[in-house]
């Protein structure tokens, strides 16, 4: 097979992809990735949504539920509660663990024990959940300190639940996605004609300019279409669910991407070595 051939690229401050951070808030980060290809920017976007691991409630045992809501309805709502996931890197995935059905290497136990004694309806919030691990708690937005509303109970109604939270990724279930969304835009003036604006008479009168339009010069009316042009500035806004800080989502996504590639690289090297070829050392150090 012979894979011993190398003339690797090098990425210098000026030659490689560039990043300009515009704004950081507790739940969002806005940045521009430039001087790279659409496929690389899109890989980053896809990994942030689907492959950065977080912790979410995955298995729920109802000991008592006399609320008006069905068990599976409440189980679904519990699954969607964002849980602070710094510990996700230290947890095993379910399929990595040999335990049955769960252990503290792969799971965090939550319990919810509420009953309504008052004449008025009682609201049950995510802050009522009691975690077995102090480092793994439901995320609470400072503007809404009670947390997420799970259910409402009338006098005499009870809810006793044990829930297992596990590590997972958005590609298995969206509840594990660390971001509510990734805003991703390039070519705000549509110079590349990657999209077509539906219009009645004049698209430029009928459509608002993109918020990112100020970032790039508008095309002149007499400018010919550059069919060789490629997108090279990508505007990102990553909004976190609260499970991870937004900048951590970006750094973990790049780490996940690197490890995916390095794994394929390692397997390819292994096949070459099995065929009696010299070991080729990678130029990166993971």
């Amino acid at each position, binding site marked *: 097979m012979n894979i011993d051939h190398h003339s*690797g*690229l090098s990425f210098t401050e000026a030659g490689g992809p560039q990043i300009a951070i515009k704004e950081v808030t507790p739940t969002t980060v806005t940045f521009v990735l430039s001087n*790279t290809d659409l496929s690389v920017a899109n890989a980053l976007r896809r990994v942030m949504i689907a492959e950065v691991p977080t912790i979410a409630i995955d*298995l729920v045992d109802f000991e008592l539920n006399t609320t008006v809501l069905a068990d599976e309805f409440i189980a679904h709502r519990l699954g969607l509660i964002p849980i602070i996931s710094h510990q996700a890197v230290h947890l095993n995935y379910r399929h990595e663990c040999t335990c049955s059905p769960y252990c503290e290497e792969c799971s965090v136990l939550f319990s919810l024990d509420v009953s309504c004694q008052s004449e008025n309806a009682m609201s049950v919030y995510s802050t009522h959940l009691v975690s077995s691990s102090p480092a793994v708690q439901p995320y609470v937005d400072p503007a809404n300190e009670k947390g997420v509303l799970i259910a409402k109970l009338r006098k005499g109604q009870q809810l006793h639940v044990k829930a297992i939270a596990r590590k997972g990724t958005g590609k*298995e279930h969206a509840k594990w996605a660390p971001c509510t969304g990734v805003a991703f835009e390039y070519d705000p003036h549509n110079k590349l004609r990657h999209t077509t604006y539906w219009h009645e008479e004049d698209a430029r009168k009928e459509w608002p300019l993109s918020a990112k339009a100020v970032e790039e010069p508008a095309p002149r009316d007499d400018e010919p279409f550059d069919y060789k042009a490629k997108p090279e500035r990508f505007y990102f806004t990553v909004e976190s669910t609260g499970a991870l800080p937004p900048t951590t989502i970006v750094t973990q996504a790049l780490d996940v991407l690197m490890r995916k590639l390095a794994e394929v690289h390692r397997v390819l090297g292994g096949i070459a070595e099995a065929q009696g070829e010299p070991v080729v050392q990678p130029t990166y150090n993971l």
Partner: protein
Amino acid sequence: MSMIEPVEDTHGFPFTEGATKFEIIPTDAADPSSATFVVHDEDHTLGNSLRFMVMKNPAVSFCGYSIPHPSEFKIHMRIQTDGSITAAQALNQGLDDLVALSEHVLATFEAKVAAKGDYETRDI
């Protein structure tokens, strides 16, 4: 407490440890300049960016990828070189380069985040 795990057919997801990650389908056993590489448990994320990186190599005359069936979690990556290097070399270099690029983006991002004051911050 007895918790019952729901059992369902996951169609090979998540990827099981020990399963085949990578296969090589030679186009012609006598011609190492062209081959199809099968990468299991990967999708457009790796496929498209790796195709871009392999195509940057001037010795590569063709590189394309496909997901042969939507319910099989794998990609096929076809590489054809001009003969000066093998298809496996082109893939090996593409992988190495793309890890190096990701490493560069990660280091750049971390440095820019550390440079507080160069960007706006809000508490809400």
